[in-house]
């Protein structure tokens, strides 16, 4: 488990009733705890699992490479001979990336063939299956009698969904997928290949997508209902205004004004990936890596995983029924479970746990 999970202030764990703060006379050195944490974290390293979903050709592999500035994924163009796979086969690639002594074990899961068939009914099932499978694995490790010290975390922390830049609105396939997946994992939708849209078209497209998401009650990351305090809310609102980000990926470098930048060179100009005036890739990168990486993991662990766990344990009747117990039989596929009920069940869970011990 993540060493920072317990005590990080940004954690979305519901806070226990606050004890009144106490006046301190002199410097004690409590803040040195941060250094200790840092040393531990550096030793253990971090894990991050990301999944990219979208039709083929939307630049998923390129985007991953651009995000992590390394050849994480060799984009594979299917050969002429290979037929489009009938069922979706996910495959993952794991890399360890190191920067200034901090190690990150990055796992990228790709979903080739998503939405490519003529009949795309139920093309999201393999993906949901994979996500649940990872939760299951973690759960099994967790309920062992003698557990490992550090359970390997293969749960998907973030799912980046690539929306094709049609310029109109979300397609039925997108809506179906997002509805189902937002309940199980953090989803960050992005407008892929945004260099085919002008700035005005981008804005209109974005407005329409936001409208669609609202009208279908799809809560993408960062979820509004999981904001803990006003600071969070302010910060996240800014992000929510810009979701979905219009991104462009590139893994070639070009010379612009004497600088070497990542970009795409066309006959009418060079599209710089890291230039905020050109596309919103920096926003995506900041969200995923620089500011909210830990938050993504926390929410996955505290909310989505717990949901899954409750459902599973309910099914198998391992859950002791204490006060405040809510029957959470697995919801049928149609109804989205609102996060509010998640919090309720989480409270119930905690109470039940306390009772049990």
């Amino acid at each position, binding site marked *: 488990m993540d060493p920072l999970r317990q005590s990080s202030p940004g954690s979305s764990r519901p806070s226990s009733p606050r004890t009144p703060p106490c006046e301190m006379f002199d410097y004690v050195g409590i803040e040195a705890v941060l250094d200790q944490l840092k040393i531990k974290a550096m030793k253990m390293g971090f894990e991050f699992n990301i999944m990219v979903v979208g*039709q*083929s*050709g*939307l*630049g998923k592999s390129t985007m991953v490479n651009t995000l992590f500035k390394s050849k994480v994924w060799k984009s594979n*163009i*299917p050969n*002429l001979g290979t037929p*489009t796979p009938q069922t979706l086969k996910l495959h993952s690639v794991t890399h360890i990336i190191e920067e200034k002594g901090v190690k990150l074990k990055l796992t990228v899961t790709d979903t080739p063939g998503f939405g*490519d*068939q*003529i*009949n*795309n*009914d139920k093309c999201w099932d393999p993906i949901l299956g994979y996500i649940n499978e990872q939760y299951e694995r973690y759960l099994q490790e967790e309920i062992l009698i003698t557990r490992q010290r550090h359970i390997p975390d293969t749960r998907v922390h973030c799912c980046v969904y690539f929306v*094709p*830049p*049609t*310029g*109109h*609105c*979300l*397609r*039925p*396939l997108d*809506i*179906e997928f997002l509805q189902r997946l937002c309940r199980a994992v953090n989803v960050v939708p992005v407008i*892929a*290949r945004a*260099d*085919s849209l*002008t*700035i005005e078209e981008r804005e209109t497209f974005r407005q*329409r997508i936001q*409208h*669609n998401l609202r*009208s*279908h009650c799809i809560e993408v990351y960062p979820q509004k209902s999981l904001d803990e305090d006003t600071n969070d809310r302010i910060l996240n609102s800014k992000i929510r205004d810009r979701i979905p980000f219009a991104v462009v990926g590139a893994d070639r470098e070009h010379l612009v004004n004497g600088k070497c930048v990542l970009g*795409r*060179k*066309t*006959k*009418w*100009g*060079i*599209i*710089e990936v890291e230039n905020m*005036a*050109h596309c919103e890739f920096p926003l995506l990168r900041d969200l995923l890596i620089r500011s909210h990486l830990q938050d993504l993991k926390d929410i996955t662990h505290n909310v989505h995983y717990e949901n899954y766990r409750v459902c599973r344990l309910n099914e198998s009747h391992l859950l002791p029924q204490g006060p405040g117990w809510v029957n959470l039989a697995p919801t049928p596929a149609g109804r989205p479970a609102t996060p509010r009920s998640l919090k309720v069940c989480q409270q119930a869970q905690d109470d039940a746990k306390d009772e049990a011990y």
Partner: protein
Amino acid sequence: TGRAGGRPARPAPGIGSRGDHPLSLVRRGGLGGEGAGVPGGPRGGSVRGRGRGPRARASGARGARGAGGRGGARGRAARRGGRGRGRGWGWGRGAGGRPEARARPGGGGRGAVGGRPGPRPRRPRRVARGRGGRRLAGGRAGGAGGGGAEGPVTPQPGLGLRRSSPRPARPPARGHHEHGPAVQEQAGDPRGQAGESGLGKSTLVHSLFLTDLYKDRKLLSAEERISQTVEILKHTVDIEEKGVKLKLTIVDTPGFGDAVNNSECWKPITDYVDQQFEQYFRDESGLNRKNIQDNRVHCCLYFISPFGHGLRPVDVGFMKALHEKVNIVPLIAKADCLVPGEIRKLKERIREEIDKFGIHVYQFPECDSDEDEDFKQQDRELKESAPFAVIGSNTVVEAKGQRVRGRLYPWGIVEVENQAHCDFVKLRNMLIRTHMHDLKDVTCDVHYENYRAHCIQQMTSKLTQDSRMESPIPILPLPTPDAETEKLIRMKDEELRRMQEMLQKMKQQMQDQ
């Protein structure tokens, strides 16, 4: 090509007296001149039989028709110049019986007044080839087809050079033949277009024809899209340039490929195409054939998404369902999101896949060996850039001090009409200026004939008649709206049958002698 065109020698049983009517001779387009005596009869399965052979042979007959048709225009002194014109539009077709006026249709021709066609001058935007072109968007000077228009353009007597209002009028109906006081025919030009939504189809149509057909279009919201089936929307525009009228019909297919389950999403489209063929078939077999409206789809622009790695299964499914019914011109949509290297790769990939899946897209006809080098070069370039990578734009932006159609990005301006940026100009030239007539020819000669043969065979098997060389009189089992007409038709059929029997008898007599 399996169809005896003019058939002046044939008695005309069955499908009307085709050969006799001069108008119909003309109207047959590339077919008409075919009196090369290729035996008729329903065309069997073989489709692409539209070689140049019969045409060349029929040059004599064709001569009467004017310089129209590719490479057919022989025996014309002014051939050189005329050919440019004839290349696209059956210029001659309007001429009907006016060979002398053949010289220089203005629109979009090679522009040279006799002799070697010079470099193509700046063309007016919308050119309906044929008799001069009226510039729609105003602005651009220069004769239609360069010197052509100013040159000896002889307006057809009876037509007058009408300068109607500069703004493009209503979209023309598909395939509608307008007859002026003289024998002209205006080609109708139906186009279908298909491709997923959001690929810029409407924008491209706007750019091609400089009309805003979709001003009042309401984009469906996501909820409405979920229950959407593929619609067929027809828009007709009447375009006129320098006295040449074009009735253009654009058929749009919103909702294609949008749903989660897209199996058979092309069915409404195939049904529509078949419906138009059927309508034409009925009209053709009817009594009054002077005013047949040609609503058949002459060309289908298929928009391939640039975001894939080639053809998607939906693309393949659609093209295979329609390639025997209509001319498919594949395009790569929204090409401004691709760098040149990617475009090249994608084009190659698509060409390979088209071969691999055995899809018959529209092939540009070969140019004759006695064409000039310029033309051959252009032809080669055209073929090499298929499928065209196009960009459309509704907006005019300022680039290098000029106002051009384009898209304004923070990193640069994409000009739609810049050949280095995209193939839009090639597409426009191909569609309107050079190959319009050919597209219609192929539709008439190949696709429609296939359909007709198929239809007749079905009816034959139903009627259980023994097979004859001539096509049996089709008693159309389709519901006709008019009982009165039906009676008339039946009467006429009887008459024709009687005539046929008489003919047989006469033949017998001749043989006995």
